[in-house]
Structures are given as structure tokens and as C-alpha cells.
């Protein structure tokens, strides 16, 4: 790691923590309960890998 990168990392860790939580909502809830601001992004890995089925699902909704 370069000196500049180390400085950046150091600065990040010393600054106020700002969290974007992606996926499991429980992690966001835990942080919120500790009064740590967190933005939750509702996301899960796509269960459908077959493009034909994915395209069909997009038309059928649900």
C-alpha cells in the first residue's frame, strides 16, 4: 500500500462512519439500534440465472 493510500485509509477510519448496507436488513437494524446512521439498500443476489426466465419474470411481475 502506498503512503498516499495509507493516509486516505487513516483519514477514512478517523472520520465519522457513514454506512450503506446492501442486502441483509438485520445488519442495518443493528447499526440503527446503536444510533449509527445507515442507509439500507434492499438487494439480493439474483436467484434467476437463466436469461429467458429472467425476461419472462420481468413481464409477469410478482
Amino acid at each position: 500500500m502506498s503512503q498516499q493510500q495509507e493516509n486516505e485509509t487513516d483519514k477514512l477510519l478517523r472520520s465519522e462512519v457513514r454506512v450503506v448496507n446492501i442486502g441483509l436488513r438485520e445488519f442495518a437494524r443493528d447499526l440503527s439500534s446503536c444510533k449509527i446512521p445507515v442507509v439500507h439498500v434492499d438487494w439480493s443476489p439474483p436467484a434467476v440465472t437463466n436469461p429467458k426466465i429472467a425476461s419472462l419474470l420481468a413481464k409477469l411481475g410478482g
Partner: protein
Amino acid sequence: MAEPSLSEKITAANAEAHRRLLGGEPVLVDVKLAREAIPKLADRTVLHAGPPIGWSRMCGPMRGAVAGAIVFEGWARNLAEAEKLAASGEIRFEPNHHYNGVGPMTGITTRNMAVLVVENRAFGNRAFCTVNEGMGNVMRFGGNDQEVVDRLKWIAGTAGPALGAAVRNRKGIPLKNIIARGLSMGDEMHMRNTACSSLIVRELAADLAETAPKELPRILRFISGNDMFFLNVVMAMAKSIAMAAHGIEHSTVVTTMCRNGTDFGIRVSSTGDTWFTGPAQMARGLLFAGFTEADGNVDIGDSCITETVGLGGFAMAAAPAVVGFVGAGTLNDAINYTKSMTEITVGPNPEWTLPTVSMMGVPTGIDIRKVVSSGLLPVINTAIANKLPGRGQIGAGVVTPPMVCFEQALMKFGEMNGAL
């Protein structure tokens, strides 16, 4: 006004399917011989659990039960002749579901067996299931010796008529309230029916005393000695409910789930009588002492009609006593199983509530779109049968259908609705 989109049509159709699943009024109305209850059930026809299958692909327990049923009916003198006859092509094999019936495990039903008759009075349809034989050496696990045949004859000739008379004496026994009470007493109605089996004895005892006083002690001992007696009642009930939700144009709700010990099969409300099948899976769970997974048969039986209407694995949170038995972990795990099923269903059933989950209604109406898009499969509680005929149950566990059933159904739906 603009034509609703396909997605909007599906939403409306699934709401209707959900309304019908919740709006059923199932009543146990009779116990009679299958040939009387199901007139189109022909001679030399054997109904079995699961999607269609022929003799050559049947598993051990299914073959054992078929041979036993052939001897029971007198179509062959012994088991060896029965197997020969079954393999000859002279016996017609058909799913129970093609006759509005269901049966646990091997699910074998023939003309002279007694069946429970449940009428869904809200929609005017009837469904059928054989009478539960008890545990151990029984036909549903492939048992086929004289003890099994003699018990089936006693059920058909003595217990069945007596139960039928008692039920008719009562002008039918409404079942929805019994289920609601059972859920609050620790039953999930698939692997635990202890409470409801007791409740049905209370319902029937006085009428049995009037209609069959001589046989009363034996019949009461037979029912009381079998915690799973009510399973077959709830299966016929669930079938009568699911039937009413079948045939709704644009609905993606599952109306049948079942397995024949080789294949798992589903049917969907709007896709007619087409079966979508894939390989039945081995249940994960607890095996009785002395058995290994190699002794078990893959998933078998029509009993997951219970999950199809929101009971069984979908109501696992109701049954703390069964969680360990099926190897599902802790009560919290059971609650999680139940909660996760809300992800793939249309909505809750407010009449069947779960005390351990703040009286949440059981998740009801499996939507194939939600199953495929989430990757979350229906959770089924199940018994594990010995793969050798007639050896009975060797454990219990949790199992899921293969995803391919839901993917095939979705593709068929897309094709039927011009969405591919």
C-alpha cells in the same frame, strides 16, 4: 379504459385464488368404499400418490403397496402373482389427484378400500382420502402382508361403515374450526396431528356409541392409538380446498404438490391438468436409531397438499413439539421457516393463526413467480420411508420440491399467455 397488463391480470387472478383458498367450507360428510364415493374408479385400477408413474419406475415401497392392494382386491392370489400382474400392463395406474383424491406416502387407493369424503360446501366439490391405518407395517409405507390386508379389510368392512354412520348422524363435521384449534394446540397438520386426532375423537365418540356400539371399543382404540389418524382427514380437507382454486385464468397459484417416490409434481391453477415434474428429493432430518440415509426412500406421498393450503411446513411455527422431530432446529428456526413462506405466497389466512408468531395467519397460496424469482422453495415437513417395502417409517425431516417444477410451470404459463 386500457386493457389490464398481464401482470395486473395475474394479480387479480391470484387474489381470486387466495379468496377461494380462504373461503372454503370443508366438512367431513362420509366414510364409504372408494367405488361408491368415486364411481369412475374402475376395476383393476390402482390410484397412487404423486404425478403419473408406471410400474417400471416405481420405488420399492410403492411397488410393495401396489402388490398388496392387488391381493387385497383379489386380483391375484399372492404377492408374486400380484407383482407379475402389475408388470403385465393389465393394471391401470393413475394418480389419486386425477380422481379428486389424495393419499399419504404410497397413497394406494383401490375400489374396495374405505375413503373419507370431505365436501367443500362453499364451492360444492368433494375430495377423498383413505383412512389412516396406523404406524409401522402399513400399506402407505409399502406393507403388503396378511396383517396389512386384514387391517384394510377391517377398515373397509367394519370401521369405515361405522365411522360413516357416525359422521352422517352428525350431518357432517365442519373441519376449519378443528384446524384452527389444532394450530393453537401444537399441530401443524402434516407431521403432528396429535391435537386434532384427539379433537376428532371427541367429535365422533357419542355418535359412534349410537351407531356402532358393539365395535366402539376397537374403533376408539384404533383411532386413539394413532396420533396421525387426522392426517388423512386434513389431506382430504386440503384437497377439497385446493380444488376450488384450480382453473382460474391467469392465476399462477399452485393447486397441487405431490410426489410418487420417484418424481415430484405440481399443477398450477391456470395451466389445466398439465403436470410439471422433477426428481423427488431426499428429506433432511432425523433418522431413527440404527438407520442411515442410505436406508431412506426419496420424498413420497400426496400429503404435501397440506402445505399447498398453508399448513405443514408453512405452519411449522405452530408445532414446537415437531421441530426437533423433523430435525428443523429450534422453535426460532420453525418460526423462520413459516415467515420465509410469506415471501412466496399470496397472503395470510386470518382464520388459521399461529400463536407463536403474534397470531399471524398461515402463509397461503404459493405463487410460482415468487418461487422462481426468490429462489425460495416451499418447505415441506415429511416422514421418511424405508426404501424397502413394508418396513415403515425410519425418520422425519424437511424437504423441498425441485426448482425445475416451478420453472417449467412458469415457462408454460408464459407460453399460454404469449409472454415468451
